């Protein structure tokens, strides 16, 4: 097309010749400038990765990569850097966040989209999203001065009552612990998990829902047989995106988790996470190549962990949102509802 325009310009269209050379060059220049800007992102991330690896190198060489990730002892003053306590802490707190946060978030999404009266929907949505507007340091502040003192008693009773349960019961209940951190994380991931679940649920074709209702399903039965199977993959993706957030959250966690150098005995004992140890120790470690290298290596492990989680999550969410056009036939059949009715 461009070639055609140029040919026309050179023969019988004086208006094209009228354009100055500068004006004709403006377009490629504009395109080029925007491409460079986009290329900047690529360069930046390559740079980012290379620098992190380079600076983590001394510590990884000193400790060994496997031992860095899996040995349960972190003692910077003796130059022992086993980051397992932090990796385990990251996994424990994130798991607590998912177990508490995801069911609540999905319930909220289902309630807002399917059950709430129409005029309550948008206020409820805004309220849930307000949770995301609170900065993490404010959650930390609230955790330290409200959650920790108020929950210490109940935590002790629970730990005593289920003494027989490994990792939950026990007597080493401390104010700052995995559970408080997980609880704060659950609150912090709630808005994003709920928002994405709502999006995914809204892609369920209305025909599926109407078919279920027309066959005599109750609201809950409609949710169970029409909505949940259809949006299961997308909701899993939403939960994983929440997990990605929980894994990388720093400031709220560092304030409420303590700073243990080994894995805690129970969910109510002090721990540490990858992000928290960086925030806690980097100030004192900055001039020590080995210690700061170990913390940067912790950052690298954290980065790789979030990269993997987010990659899987995006894949699931995108697949779920595209599914709308791909799945032709409604899955609900009269038999499904009949089974419900007869209760078999």
């Amino acid at each position, binding site marked *: 097309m461009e070639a055609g325009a140029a040919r026309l310009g050179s023969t019988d269209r004086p208006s094209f010749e009228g354009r100055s050379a500068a004006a004709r060059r403006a377009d490629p220049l504009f395109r080029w400038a925007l491409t460079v800007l986009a290329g900047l992102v690529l360069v930046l991330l390559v740079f980012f990765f290379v620098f992190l690896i380079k600076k983590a190198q001394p510590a990884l060489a000193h400790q060994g990569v496997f031992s860095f990730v899996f040995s349960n002892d972190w003692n910077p003053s003796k130059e022992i850097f086993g980051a397992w306590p932090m990796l385990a802490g990251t996994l424990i707190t994130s798991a607590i966040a998912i177990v508490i946060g995801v069911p609540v978030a999905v319930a909220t999404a289902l309630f807002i989209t399917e059950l709430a009266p129409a005029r309550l929907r948008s206020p409820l949505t805004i309220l849930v999203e307000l949770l995301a507007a609170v900065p993490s340091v404010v959650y930390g502040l609230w955790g330290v001065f409200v959650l920790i003192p108020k929950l210490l008693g109940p935590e002790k009773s629970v730990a005593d009552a289920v003494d027989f349960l490994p990792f939950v019961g026990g007597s080493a209940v401390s104010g700052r612990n995995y559970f408080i951190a997980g609880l704060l994380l659950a609150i912090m991931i709630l808005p994003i998990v709920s928002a994405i679940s709502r999006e995914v649920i809204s892609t369920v074709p209305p025909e599926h829902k109407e078919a279920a209702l027309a066959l005599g399903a109750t609201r809950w039965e409609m949710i169970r047989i029409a909505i949940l199977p259809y949006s299961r993959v997308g909701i899993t993706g939403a939960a994983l995106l929440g997990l990605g957030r929980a894994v990388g959250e720093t*400031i709220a966690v560092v304030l409420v988790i303590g700073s243990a150098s080994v894995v805690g005995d129970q969910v109510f004992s002090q721990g540490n996470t990858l992000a928290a140890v960086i925030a806690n120790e980097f100030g004192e470690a900055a001039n020590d190549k080995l210690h700061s290298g170990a913390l940067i290596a912790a950052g690298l492990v954290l980065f790789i962990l979030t990269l993997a989680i987010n990659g899987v999550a995006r894949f699931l969410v995108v697949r779920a949102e595209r599914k709308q056009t791909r799945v032709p036939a409604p899955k609900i059949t009269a038999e499904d509802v009949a089974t419900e009715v007869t209760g078999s």
Partner: protein
Amino acid sequence: MSTPASAAQLLAPLPGRRRRTDQVMRGLLALGTIIALVPLVLVIYYLFSRGLKGMSWDFFTTDPTGNFLGDPGGVKSAILGTLEIVAVASLIAIPIGIGVALYLVEFGRGSSFAQVVRYLIDVMTGVPSIVFGLFIYIVLVTSKIGGTFAGWKGSVALALLMLPVVTRSGEVVLNLVPTQLRESALALGVPRWKVTMKIVLPTALPGLVTGSLLAVARGMGETAPLLYTSAAVMGTSANLGERMNSLPVQIFGDISTPNDAIVDRAWASALTLVLIILIITLIARLAARRSRVA
């Protein structure tokens, strides 16, 4: 009843077990929603009940003194620091972010380079903020470019965090600009760059403003990227070339200080920060309402 029977009346009444299950599950979903709102109510309640008493004229107009005993001072430098650092971060992140979004939408359709960039933007969204802080520490602080810690280095770290938010929301909004609009302008002989700058951008403007403001609100509350780039709790400088205080870092420092007056200051600072963020979010929502596309 004389009116025609409704569908519900025509059908046989639900067996008790199914009706009970339905009621229980509906109740559980409603309960879940209430549980989700409990922390919001509690956080707001504590912010106001503990934060208001620390607010006074002095709170806003004096700098932190750094005294452990006696008058801890206010948070003037922290508020100024936050505003300055976030303003510079926005000046970096918003133009680049929108530029990248423009590339992706206007020139990048179907190109594999655009696919890669889009993927990398996704990757950036997931990078924990403390890791961005570490990166800027390595690149800008240890290299001693313009001194060690400086306000503008914190801005760069925040910009890295805000950039993907701006680009992702920008891409969504730009995609909503009708293709016919571009085609009609191009058909009239308007060069591509002019179509983009004079037609696509103005059409998408309210949406771009919303996305950018949400990114600003996000950046404003971040502590981790500032800790090892610009942070100086108790700092009083308003010069971006020096160590600077900021509200999140001030709160973070104050929490760890076992002194009632300083903890009160943390609550009052937290309330201030949340109110600033809420105002920005509100403006963003209003801009979204004015949007011509979307």
